[in-house]
């Protein structure tokens, strides 16, 4: 029951949920939630391969770096979202059209 393929299926499902949230939802913070799901799917893949490979510990270190980068990305992304809300009174993604030519 606990095999590599079951972890891969769970990771694939998490990735698909994250992609769906990123594409379909219109709220900037909801898009950040989708990015968190995708990063967790990749970290789960790293740890699963490091367990069922030759028990190499490098996958754990990659998962730790992924967690660090996800925390930094969440802090900066939420700061940008709050700043955008202060300027435009909305965080709907379709209203961010200042950079369109």
């Amino acid at each position, binding site marked *: *029951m*606990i*095999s*590599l*393929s*079951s*972890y*891969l*299926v*769970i990771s694939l499902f*998490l990735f698909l*949920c994250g992609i769906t*949230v990123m594409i*379909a*939802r*219109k*709220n900037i*913070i*909801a898009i*950040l*939630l989708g990015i*968190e*799901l995708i990063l*967790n799917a990749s*970290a*789960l893949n790293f*740890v699963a391969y*490091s*367990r*069922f*490979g*030759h*028990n190499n*510990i*490098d996958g*754990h*270190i990659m*998962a*730790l*770096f992924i*967690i*660090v*980068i996800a*925390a*930094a*990305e*969440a*802090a*900066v992304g*939420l*700061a*940008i*979202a*709050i700043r955008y*809300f*202060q*300027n435009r009174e*909305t*965080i*709907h993604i379709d209203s961010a059209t200042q950079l369109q030519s």
Partner: protein
Amino acid sequence: MFLNVVFSLSALLTVSGALMVVVTRNLIHSCVFLLMSLLGIVGLYVTLNADFVAATQLVVYVGGVIVLMLFAVMLTGGNNTKEVLSRFGFESLPLMGNVKTYFWGILSAITMMSVAGNLIYRVAQSSLASVLEQYKSSVDEIGTKLLTDHVLSFEISSILLLGALVGAAIIARPLGSKQLNEEK
């Protein structure tokens, strides 16, 4: 047996949490379901013999990121307007694409899913590490690796965290604070 029970519960928590993040309308509920999914991933890490990664995930995500997300949702009033509440935003958009784009989209989705399924099937067929090692703590090995093989990326991640903290503080500073300082 016990490991199977833990794995099943964690997998159920992860998958149902991720699914509810997709389908729920309320953003606060979405954050809480993401929390549920991350707790399930902590359980999966525990079944994968990754105790230090599980503890870090628990501290950083459950203690930090989700609280930050909830603060941001409440600061931006994410549930006030209807357009933010709309789950997929379809009512404000025309139908995205025509028959041709849908055809190619479905075809590429089938191709991608067949490739992913083929990969997972191959992995399931191959007997990769049929005898797993016994459980032991991975903290000392992670510490040794982190300061010998991966020391450059360790230091770079510290600089990245410093830059992200300073950048977030500068970006999210209160509006008009510069004018206030100049008036003083």
